[in-house]
């Protein structure tokens, strides 16, 4: 028998609309649910600045609804559970995000997200909507080897792009510069995830993959995609000792570098466990001569109640540090 997990929902077909309605009501001071069913800023950003829009499958909250607001995204087009929204929705999102200086469509690299965004850009061209660009973002080192970075998946580490690109676009009227900034942050970010127990589909209630009670999987994707290998459950320190060298050598992060650190909770890890993990991360960074400029620990991109985490590092220079420290007011990311 397949395991089923308990969830507090109403009708499965109403999950998306009811979730958006509740979210917009709770954070009405920051966002609103517009006539298209998009989460948009309560107060649009200044005219003449580049608009940022992202579409995504739902089920990963607070990504991406919680990242709309000043210093972050302008518009989020939420699709059905784990399903990228269609191209017409992205085109509508582009229109909603337009403040007269062009719109950057951000794509977290997954097959459906990429294909629909490509089609949306073709539709924009056919409709004569000018000044729209797309940037494809990825960070997961387990999904393709070094040298084939553009085949990698987008996972929790894109958090760094959301925050710093958001800050950059708040004051920039230059679409090409925004795209270049997104690529710069992406190219300095690396992530690796680890899963302890699966999450379950909110629609079917069934677990998304099977993982024996005494095993972990390194490199598990945000939809239960296979990682680089399973092993027996090991201690928190041993887990970080396994993951950190893989991340450090991939960029590579080197002695003297400054980094931002994210430990993203996949769903049901405890803060207690995350602090214990971070302790070892700090020790490992110090041993490698790498300085943690700032760190964030929390659930930013989740996979329902999956237990696990992703460790992400982003190498920063003075420009990125200033963008990191710039104000942001999303429901789930404040600076």
């Amino acid at each position, binding site marked *: 028998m397949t395991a089923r997990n308990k969830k507090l929902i109403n009708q499965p077909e109403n999950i998306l609309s009811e979730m958006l309605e509740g979210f917009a009501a709770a954070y009405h001071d920051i966002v609103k649910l517009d006539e298209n069913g998009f989460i948009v800023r309560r107060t649009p950003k200044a005219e003449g600045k580049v608009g940022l829009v992202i579409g995504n499958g739902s089920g990963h909250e607070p990504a991406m609804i919680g990242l709309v607001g000043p210093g972050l995204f302008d518009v989020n087009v939420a699709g059905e559970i784990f399903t990228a929204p269609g*191209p*017409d929705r992205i085109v509508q999102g582009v229109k909603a995000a337009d403040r007269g200086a062009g719109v950057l469509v951000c794509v977290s690299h997954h097959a459906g997200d990429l294909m629909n965004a490509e089609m949306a850009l073709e539709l924009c061209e056919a409709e004569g909507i000018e000044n729209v660009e797309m940037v494809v973002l990825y960070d997961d080192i387990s999904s393709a080897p070094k040298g084939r970075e553009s085949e990698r998946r987008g996972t929790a580490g894109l958090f760094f792009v959301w925050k710093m690109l958001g800050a950059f676009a708040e004051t920039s009227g230059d679409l090409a510069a925004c795209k270049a900034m997104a690529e710069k942050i992406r190219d300095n970010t690396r992530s690796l995830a680890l899963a302890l127990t699966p999450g379950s589909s909110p629609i079917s209630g069934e677990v998304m993959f099977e993982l024996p009670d005494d095993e972990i999987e390194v490199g598990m994707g945000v939809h239960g995609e296979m990682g680089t290998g399973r092993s027996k459950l090991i201690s928190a320190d041993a887990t970080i000792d396994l993951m950190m060298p893989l991340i450090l050598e991939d960029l590579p992060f080197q002695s003297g570098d400054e980094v931002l650190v994210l430990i993203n909770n996949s769903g049901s890890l405890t803060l207690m466990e995350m602090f214990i993990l971070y302790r070892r991360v700090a020790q490992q960074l110090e041993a490698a001569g790498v300085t943690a400029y700032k760190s964030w620990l929390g659930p930013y991109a989740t996979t329902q109640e999956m237990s696990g985490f992703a460790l992400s590092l982003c190498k920063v220079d003075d420009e990125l540090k200033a963008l990191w420290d710039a104000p942001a007011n999303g429901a789930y990311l404040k600076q």
Partner: protein
Amino acid sequence: MTYSTGADLVTLIVAISERINANKDELNKLDAALGDGDHGTGISGGFAVAAEQAQALDNPTPGDVLKSTAMALMNTMGGSSGALYGTFFLKASMLVKDKTELDSNDWAAMCQAGLEGVMQRGKAELGGKTMIDALAPAVEALKTSDQSLSGTMKQAAAAAESGAKATVEMVPQFGRAKFTGDRAVGHQDAGATSIMLMFQALASVT
């Protein structure tokens, strides 16, 4: 039947919708082994809207029906399936947009255009455990058959069927399923199966 009109295409889209809806749970089950188990629900919802919109068209050409179907699938389904099915019908519609009747050669040419569009959009190839593994053999049968239109469609449906069955032993190379690797062997691909159902519906009404 020697050719298909716009009205025939409407009948076809309705037949596809019915056949997919009747196999919705089976498609969900196949998808659950490799994905998130929603392929049947997604595609049956998409074709239900496509059928409704096709029936509402006023005296359409075949190209009108195909284009309306493309837009309905893309915009209702989302995800990879919406993009790929939408692309198939959109490319097919562009090839026959000036025609009022489609013969066997038109069918072969427009399905070939659809197949090429899907391969380009999804960057997938034959043997990768995707919808291509049912679609490519069906297109090949359309191109090489010397039968009447209805005989040709039966051959295409049979080719799609054996193509879908062959995905059981394949290891996925593309899309989200790529990351399930060897765990996927032993399961028939849901996308290839829905293509098979589409060609079976085509054979049933031609």
